[in-house]
């Protein structure tokens, strides 16, 4: 035993931290393998993020050097810009509907697919297909489907005696229209697959135990399924909130934020400031402000998750 330990440490030479030569070589090799990724992270993520934060204190139009403004950009966005709060309101309106409806619909779809019925594989594929459709293509297709005069949806409504709304052309209907498009693309996507994985991870013996105790399907869902998939639910909730708040493509491609400003979401407003008006400093300030908002919501989600998320093996005090 002593001989072995000597061979593993002393014989091959003990260096700093008592690491063997082999160990040191492994560490060096490990870092070497990581280096390209680390450089990529540093150059393409960390430095630009840091740079964007510095830009929030400047007036920068990408052509001339940034001019230091202090906190003027933050003052403008919080107190002076009449577009900031309405666009934030629209974004929250979209997210508040999209997140719960999307989560519930995805869970229901996952539960259906978890019934092990015939043709489940086909249904899973069909449910997932909208996610594979490019967002821009989907936006254009839906724009035509929802066309107030020539669209298929209004035509079908007209066939049953209903005068369809203006959909994306009407101020009141534009965000609900985008919700429909968002749900179409989001229900059967990655979120549903994550739920499905969560559902398949619930131990069967728990359901059997519940059945022995006389639980019906609803009771089993409420007392076994939901608690067991609550970590999955939390994961999807956090991703869903972040994703919904970042809604951009549909508004950018289908309506350009219109009619009027009815679909000018916060991210679209950031884009305009950056790439239409070239106010990179102000756009950076808007982006960092939005980051703080999303971060706060995520932290709130985590904070309250302790009340409803159950981790297997967790000891509650």
């Amino acid at each position: 035993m002593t001989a072995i330990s000597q061979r593993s440490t002393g014989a091959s030479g003990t260096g700093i931290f008592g690491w063997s030569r082999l160990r040191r070589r492994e560490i060096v090799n490990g870092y070497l393998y990581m280096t390209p990724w680390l450089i990529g992270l540093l150059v393409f993520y960390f430095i630009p993020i840091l740079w964007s934060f510095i830009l929030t204190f400047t007036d920068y139009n990408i052509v001339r050097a940034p001019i230091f403004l202090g906190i003027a950009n933050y003052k403008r966005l919080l107190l002076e810009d009449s577009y900031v709060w309405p666009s934030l309101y629209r974004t929250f309106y979209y997210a508040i509907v999209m997140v719960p409806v999307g989560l519930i619909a995805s869970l229901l779809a996952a539960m259906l697919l978890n019934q092990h019925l015939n043709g489940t594989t086909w249904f899973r594929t069909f449910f997932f297909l909208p996610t594979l459709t490019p967002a821009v293509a989907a936006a254009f297709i839906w724009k035509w489907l929802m066309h107030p005069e020539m669209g298929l949806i209004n035509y079908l409504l007209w066939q049953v005696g209903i005068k369809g709304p203006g959909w994306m052309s009407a101020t009141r209907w534009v965000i609900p229209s985008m919700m429909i498009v968002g749900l179409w693309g989001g229900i059967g996507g990655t979120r549903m697959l994550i739920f499905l994985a969560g559902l398949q991870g619930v131990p069967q013996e728990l359901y059997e135990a519940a059945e022995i105790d006389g639980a019906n399907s609803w009771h089993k869902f409420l007392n076994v399924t939901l608690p067991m998939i609550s970590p999955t639910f939390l994961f999807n909730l956090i991703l869903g909130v972040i994703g919904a708040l970042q809604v951009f493509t549909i508004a950018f491609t289908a309506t350009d934020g219109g009619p009027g400003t009815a679909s000018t979401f916060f991210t679209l407003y950031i884009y305009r400031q950056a790439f239409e008006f070239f106010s990179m400093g102000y756009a950076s300030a808007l982006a960092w402000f939005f980051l703080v908002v999303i971060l706060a919501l995520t932290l709130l989600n985590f904070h309250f998750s302790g009340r409803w998320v159950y981790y297997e093996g967790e000891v509650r005090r």
Partner: protein
Amino acid sequence: MTQPEPTRPASPDRRIVRNLEHRPALAFQAFTTSLGHVPKAVKLRDDVPVQQGRKETPAKTVHPRDTRYPCALCLGGAIMQLLSRRKFLAGAELAAAGVLLGACQPKVVEKIVKETVVVTEERVVEVEKEKVVKETVVVTEEKVVKETVVVEKAVKETVTIMPVTMAYYWDDAMNALMPNFLEQFPHIKVEPIVVPGWSEYPVKLMAMHAAATLGDTVEYDMGWQFMEWAHKGIIRPLDNLIEATGFDIDMFYPSGREASTFQGHLIAIPEDTHPGCVAPYYNADMLGELGLDPPSNDWDYAEYLQYLQKVTQDTNNDGQTDIWGIGCHSSIKGLYPELRANGGTMYDAEARKCLYNSEAGLMTLKNRYDLFQTYKVHPLPGGEAYDSLYRSGKMWMRLMTPTHIMSMTTATKDLFRTEAVVMPKSTKTGEIGTATTGIGYCMTTLTKYPEETWDFLQWIGSQWYGLEAFHQGFTTPGGRKDTWGDASVAEQWPFAKEIAAILEYSEAYENPWNLRHQEIQRVFNEIESRMYLGEIQPDEAADTIVTEIDKILEMPMI
């Protein structure tokens, strides 16, 4: 008594050298002989005084050294006897340094090249001849020949310029025109950087400028965008080039030049100029079907409204409009001529306050609002594209810039006849408003070849280009008086003379003092759109426009 210094008898070798000093022809003979390896005795003439005051012994045939050595070495040996080793080494070092310096100046040739491009070839040759003739004839000839070769090579040196253009412009018609330029300037290659469309263009341009990869020319809507680019140092003034080359800029319409001028400097060639939305086009066949005469250029606003109401129809009586009267170009650009016609302006004299809530501004907004909401002759925004409605016969009239008249006439020629008419005069002032716009070509500050780029811009701004481009399918005959007024244009497009007449008095857009037009336009469009949808009334729209635009005008220069 000083003894005269004994004269050292000249050695045969030294004598040769001295003789060579005085006898260039002989020196040349010695030099050329030395290139061969057969040594020959140098025959010296008897009557050549080798040293002043001395009569040299008449020479016979002298051989400097052993005939086994080449004559070059004989010459070298002679030189070595004349010079001390130290002097020889110093001279050799100097020569080596000279060669080295010469070798380290590869740009010298290019300098000559650049100069010779400006100065004529003949002059260079003459100067060199004069200079060199003083020395030896043979060398002179060699030198002249060499210089001439260099000059010819320089003139043919190829330069590539890169116009940053749009797919919309650099089409087949442009490709058909390019051979003319390449023929005139064979040393200039043109490789366009094609950007897909209008909306991407400014973003791409700014990014390329920031990355120092921007091409040599840029083209865009004349007016505010050029001012912004000039202010940011992306494009350069053209005044010096115009002055140096005598380019006839006065041939362009004054408002086109004004729209291309920033702080007193011309920053673009107003290649394509028109007076804005002053001439709607319409489906002439539709009037025939309705039994209506075509509108005349003297019609008034009441007649205009009557026409629009008559042509707007619900053909199947389902309560939905099937044929619309008109589809107008919205935004500031679309309303500007009407605002001017009503006697209004967008800004105050310093362009620091918006004046859209004036009587004229309100009247302009009200007129447009009535088309959407009161008379319902205009489809609401967000529906089918107006161009599509027009082409499919579901819209009678389109109010756009004159650039669209020809393109739509061509697009619909197999379906129906498209004609154009001048906008009715304002009921308030009795005038037609204008807002000159079009396309200008600018030179970037990053160009490496300003002379060649200027050649390209001059070509773009030429009468030939304006006319040929029009006949190849461009939508207007350019921005020059002699193209708009050309008989061949009138023959192909009779309505052009109406546009040309308006261009004579047309005025350019006003630009906000801080050049934040893009932000102003966005705000304007959003409020205007809400008004068309009936969400707000014209007076509220006017007040909101002024409030929001004034906020932007309070911001610093872009």
